[in-house]
């Protein structure tokens, strides 16, 4: 069979970069294949995707060596328009790529640009909408849709072109776990119905493997380091080596010393078949573990009592929310988009005002304190650092929050410097912010809050869009702050974060606080997982398969063991 995409000794270098981003790529993809391209941030996986859809070299300029043929067309001699009739691309941000004022218009966008007659356009738009089951929302505006629905619209928008190749650039990055799961199912279904070739670029391997893929291409530093079927890759130790998180169930099997070479269905948790020997090994591992216990006897730092909230003249968002947080806790707030998580945090910070209920800080009622007043004890870090940074220089940015409160220039300098030291940014203190990486910018925004001396920091999705390495880096930094006594509250979709870095999770849906228990207990509760749009952990499935009566304690043991292993690994390397 002839490949539909063929890279031959292909290299690419952006005009603004010193070194090539892609180096001597050789890769053939055949019609009807489903391929996962993975790699850490900066491995070149997105660049590879942009070469296939023509954004490179027609939108991002640079130097190409070697050859890339898509459906027998040499891309560099083609145009982005010709390639877009072959390759349909669904980009990462479902909001940014929604250009129409309504669902129907957005789906029809490519047809409009192709001068298709209106009658034909109506029919084709509707049929594409049906493929992704969004046909009942044709006249909805983007802000009436959830993230998952917007992504469906994007898919329909490329399906109208009858493309032969579908390219998904980090399709899971902006979705909650349950929506991500159904996105992966939808991709699989579309692939089967339309007989297209599917390429998924993503670093969340376990989530993509929810439905089978044919091959995984692993990239590192602009090169392909592995190109094989998923089972072979999972059995190797390449994922760990190149900074990709391996599926939790796999790590578990390795810890229990199960011989993964003899396990069937290792590439998909749904197909995993554990033999008796493996089951025995897992039970043995579990019984040999000390059961971890987390006890926090501190006094309450924050108490939220019977909060009701609604925006003027719209539906109620929060109903009778009450909980207490102890000093020094590190906890997660989870739940569907629109469940009221962010709104709750805004109410706590005083950005929005509740119409019922009380908020107590260290026992003192702060329900009516101003935003500025509350900011001296509760800090709020937004998801996207660009939304917070307003100064060109790091020092100015971090010092902003403590100006106009009567400190001398000397005192300001002292406080900023000591904060920068805590955040590992001291050596950059005279740098312009534009020279920093995303993760460093995130630290600057945390520093700019920390400098005001808050006792609680609330972070909105601190690890969104981060690969395993950067995730670990940010989380370890937050742990360090936590050890210094700062209470940390995180709004998150990331279930690894809930399991690994929090002692407790508050789960919301339908505007109510529905559960208040450990991350492992949440993710082993099938009913809760379903209603709050989460996804149960694969460890739970193993525990039930093996017949362990208390899956929550099993998960806790795993997390505890994993932490020790990882810090041990760090010390030895």
């Amino acid at each position, binding site marked *: 069979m002839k490949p539909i995409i063929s890279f031959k000794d292909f290299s690419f270098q952006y005009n603004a970069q010193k070194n090539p981003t892609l180096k001597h790529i050789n890769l053939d993809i055949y019609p009807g294949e489903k391929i996962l391209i993975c790699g850490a941030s900066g491995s070149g996986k997105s660049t590879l995707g942009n070469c296939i859809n023509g954004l490179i070299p027609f939108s991002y300029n640079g130097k190409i060596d070697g050859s890339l043929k898509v459906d027998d067309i040499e891309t560099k001699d083609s145009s982005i328009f010709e390639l877009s009739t072959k390759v349909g691309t669904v*980009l990462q941000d479902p909001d940014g790529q929604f250009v129409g004022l309504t669902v129907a218009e957005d789906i029809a966008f490519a047809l409009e640009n192709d001068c298709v007659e209106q009658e034909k356009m109506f029919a084709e738009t509707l049929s594409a909408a049906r493929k992704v089951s969004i046909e009942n929302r044709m006249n909805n505006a983007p802000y009436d849709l959830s993230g998952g629905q917007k992504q469906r619209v994007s898919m329909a928008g490329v399906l109208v072109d009858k493309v032969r190749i579908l390219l998904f650039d980090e399709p899971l990055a902006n979705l909650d776990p349950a929506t991500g799961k159904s996105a992966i199912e939808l991709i699989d279904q579309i692939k089967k119905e339309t007989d297209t070739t599917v390429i998924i670029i993503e670093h969340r391997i376990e989530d993509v493997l929810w439905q089978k893929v044919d091959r995984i291409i692993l990239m590192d530093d602009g090169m392909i380091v592995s190109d094989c079927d998923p089972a072979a890759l999972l059995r190797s130790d390449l994922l760990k080596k190149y900074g990709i998180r391996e599926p939790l169930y796999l790590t578990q099997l390795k810890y229990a010393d199960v011989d993964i070479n003899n396990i069937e269905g290792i590439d998909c948790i749904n197909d995993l078949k554990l033999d008796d020997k493996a089951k025995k090994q897992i039970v043995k591992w579990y019984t040999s573990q000390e059961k971890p216990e987390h006890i926090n006897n501190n006094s309450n730092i924050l108490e939220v009592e019977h909060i009701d909230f609604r925006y003027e003249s719209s539906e109620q968002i929060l109903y009778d929310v009450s909980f207490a947080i102890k000093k020094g806790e590190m906890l997660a707030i989870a739940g569907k988009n629109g469940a009221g998580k962010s709104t709750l945090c805004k109410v706590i910070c005083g950005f929005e005002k509740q119409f019922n209920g009380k908020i107590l800080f260290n026992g003192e009622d702060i329900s009516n304190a101003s935003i*500025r007043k509350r900011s001296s004890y509760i800090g709020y870090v937004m998801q996207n650092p660009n939304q917070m940074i307003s100064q060109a220089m790091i020092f100015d940015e971090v010092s902003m929050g403590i100006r106009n409160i009567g400190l001398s220039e000397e005192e300001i300098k002292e406080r900023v410097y000591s904060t920068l030291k805590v955040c590992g940014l001291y050596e950059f203190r005279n740098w312009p912010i534009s020279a920093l990486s995303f993760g460093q910018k995130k630290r600057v925004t945390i520093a700019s809050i920390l400098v005001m001396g808050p006792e609680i920091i609330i972070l909105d999705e601190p690890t969104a869009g981060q690969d395993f390495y950067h995730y670990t880096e940010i989380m370890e930094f937050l742990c360090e702050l936590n050890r210094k006594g700062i209470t940390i509250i995180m709004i998150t979709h990331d279930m690894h974060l809930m399991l690994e870095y929090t002692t407790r999770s508050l789960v919301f849906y339908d505007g109510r606080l529905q559960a208040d228990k450990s991350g492992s207990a949440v993710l082993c509760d099938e009913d809760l997982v379903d209603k709050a749009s989460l996804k149960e952990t694969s460890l739970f499935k193993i525990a039930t398969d093996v017949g362990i009566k208390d899956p929550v304690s099993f998960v806790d043991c795993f997390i505890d063991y994993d932490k020790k292993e990882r810090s041990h690994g760090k010390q030895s390397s």
Partner: protein
Amino acid sequence: MANKVLNYIPKDSFMHRLSGTTKLIVFLTFSFLCGLSFDTRVLLFLLVLSISCFFLSHIRLSEVKLMSMFLVVFIVMNFILLFIFNPNYGPELYGSRTVLFHIAGRYDVTLEQLFYQFNVSLKYVIGFPVAILFIATTNPSEFASSLSQIGVPYRISYSVSLALRYIPDIQTDYHEIAQSQEARGVALGKDVKISERIKNSVKILMPLVLTSLNRIDEIANSMQLRSFGKNKKRTWYMQKKMTASDYLVIAFCVVLFVVGMIITNQGGNNLYNPFI
């Protein structure tokens, strides 16, 4: 969500059923005729037309209350200011001077000045219902296609659509950024000095511009990947087909404009002068 001052009010009426292009032509005809003519007879006729259009649209005055109030205030202000700045423009224009009473200094209330100002106000009163009609009865999705129909290049007319699409997003961004900056002492409240407020608004605009710029990159890519700019022309999903009533209305507009201009220019200038 988006601003509630002025927006599309979906209904089923004769005006709603007309295509956006037709309504744009009606709007332009009225605007030009209004702008060019000072002939009171023509203006009065336009006023009758414009008010009947408003009734045809089934839009109630209460639905455009805010704008109507704004119009009244605007006309009153305009009336007063016109008099203050040049109380003798009317007599100059009409070449006669009928003093009703004297106020002070050069301020005489003359019949000519009052008539001149009446004409100016008339123009606003005519223009207002037509402008509101155009906006309130045209689906925003149809704007861009209407503009492109009357000859505006689609790359430009599509930007209208894009602006309508992303303005609510930017408003949300602005709101969130302002809140988080306020927590760091960037206040915009009434108790802050004006100079300080201006300085502080820059601290909110900077992050807003940065986040918007990032978004523009993504939007541009997404549009290109779906063939925007491939052809010289494009079709529009939301474009309404022209019907017989559309052609009739357009023909009427042409006749109205031509006749209106002939009547206006009868006396050698664009005035109707009852003072001769």
